[in-house]
């Protein structure tokens, strides 16, 4: 169990976290969601004890963090450089056991290697593996480590869609099998909804918890590939997007998300409607160039960026009904492709 009270963190004069309090129960998966630079990593550092120069109180398993760190540590998985490149896959995973001697704990290591599906790669060096495999090695080490807690800082951020989905599934299984308390940080809304029991949305710095969302039980049973098409998912996403847009200062978008019932729409339609609505209402009178800037800003803030690129590339989107000229659309496509 983790209990954080009135956490406050500053670097020199820059306050990055201001008054954050929360609790994480045993076996829970909790996600911190927020834009880049919202102090997510700083928060994790305070939580794990990597950074102890903060104000406030962190309690782990009922004792103060200081006391906890004397004997124990939280397992950690980061986005990159998560393994030692001079060690083999097996060596890196074995680190979690914290024992020396060649044959000790071999059974446990092999068991984990089986679970993370890296059989046959034991003797490989980590740099030889793909990004997804490397993250699995880090995950394996973290599971083997005899800690109740698993702290993950955007661990799947650099991976492709399918690898990511597989690892997310694996993480859920780990949570079920080992009953580890998992604190997860991401900026990906779908990932947060798929994985978590609860989501904390952080504001921009100085970060506070802008909203806490408790996910309904039904969504936790859904498969990652299926989840996008569930009504409850779309509703949750709108809710989160509304909060994020509000934090970005885009009041009108916040309002759309709040007032319109988008849950009946399929994914692409949902985007389309949202875009058309916005374009028609807001940007009729702007010059072309500014229209594009505004649209790009909208896309980014709504986190539908990738989907829009896909739609535009497959010409699924019909801009003619909006106020964008074909010329403007061409520039937009070019810009999106470049990003």
């Amino acid at each position, binding site marked *: 169990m983790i209990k954080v009270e009135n956490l406050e963190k500053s670097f020199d004069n820059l306050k990055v976290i201001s008054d954050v309090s929360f609790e994480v129960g045993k076996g829970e998966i909790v996600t911190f969601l927020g834009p880049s630079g919202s102090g997510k990593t700083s928060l994790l550092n305070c939580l*794990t*004890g*990597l950074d102890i120069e903060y104000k406030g109180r962190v309690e782990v398993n009922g004792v103060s963090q200081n006391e906890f760190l004397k004997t*124990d*540590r*939280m*397992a*950690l998985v*980061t986005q*990159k*450089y*998560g*393994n*030692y*490149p*001079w060690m083999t896959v097996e060596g890196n995973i074995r*680190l*979690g056991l*914290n024992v020396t001697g060649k044959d000790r704990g071999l059974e446990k290591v092999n068991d984990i290697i089986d679970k993370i599906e890296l059989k046959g790669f034991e003797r*490989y*060096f980590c*740099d*030889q*593996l*793909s990004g997804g495999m490397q993250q699995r090695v880090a995950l394996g080490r*973290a599971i083997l*480590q005899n800690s109740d807690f698993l*702290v993950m800082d955007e661990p799947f951020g650099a991976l492709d869609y399918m690898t990511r989905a597989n690892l997310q599934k694996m993480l859920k299984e780990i949570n079920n099998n080992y009953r580890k308390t998992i604190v997860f940080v991401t900026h990906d809304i779908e990932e947060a909804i798929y994985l978590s029991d609860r989501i904390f949305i952080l504001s921009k710095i100085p970060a506070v918890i802008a909203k806490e969302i408790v996910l309904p039980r039904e969504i936790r049973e859904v498969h990652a590939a299926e989840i996008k098409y569930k009504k409850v998912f779309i509703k949750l996403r709108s809710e989160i997007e509304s909060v994020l847009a509000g934090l970005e200062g885009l009041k009108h978008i916040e309002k759309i998300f709040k007032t319109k019932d988008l849950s009946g729409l399929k994914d692409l339609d949902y985007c389309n409607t949202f875009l058309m609505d916005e374009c028609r209402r807001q940007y009729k009178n702007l010059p072309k160039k500014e229209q594009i800037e505004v649209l790009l800003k909208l896309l980014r803030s709504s986190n539908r960026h990738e989907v829009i690129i896909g739609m535009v590339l497959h010409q699924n989107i019909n801009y003619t009904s909006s106020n964008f000229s074909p010329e403007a659309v061409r520039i937009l496509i070019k810009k999106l492709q470049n990003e």
Partner: protein
Amino acid sequence: MVFYDKNKTFLLSLLLIGLIWWAVTDFHLIDELFLPSPSLFFEAFTSLFLSRDFGYDILISVWRVVFAWSLSFIFAVPVAFLMSNSIWANRLLSPYVDFLRYLPVPVLIPLIILFFGIGESAKIALLFIGTFFQLVLLIHDDLNDIPKEYYNIGFSLNFSFFRIQLMKFKAIAPNLWNNCRITMGWCWTYLVIAELVASKAGIGYVIKEAQRFSKTPEIYVGIFIMGVIGFFSDTLWRFFYPKIFRYKSIKNL
């Protein structure tokens, strides 16, 4: 084509240089005082080994470099680790390291002779000063470049102080190996300077003596031997790199 084979290309270039050498000296394009002919060169080569015991000079030069370099390595590693572990040690030592690093070694010769006399210790001291401060700086820089994630892993696994140091050493080891290779090369440069001043043996001494008596072929032999030793020591360093740091050379999947 012959150029696809590394060794064949090398042999071809050797042959070409030999041919040019033979041609310019045989046709007297260059005076023999400046560039001896191949036959004069080989004559000087054999006579140096037979009459002067040149092998001893080579050995003593190699010994000076290896000994002085090893000494500076043995001291530089702990000093660099100390500077990376303690911010106070770093603040205390780094100004001096930076100051001494920029001094050209030859300007220290008068002082070194004053302190160590003209014996073997003076030469070792000169080589030591020439490499120690450079090595400290290079190792310290590498230590600073270790990704902070490596420390984070160590922290989350509750590593002891000693294990963290071991991790740091392993993290910088490939760069350290290369830095050793490079600083040993510098050591050879300083050796010549050391042996030109008040010396009774060594390759540099042989070159200096040859210069005194205008024995140009012997100068060339000395230079040639130095080049060959440098070449072989460099090859040795490079040969073992992929053997020791297998993870650096293995191909990706």
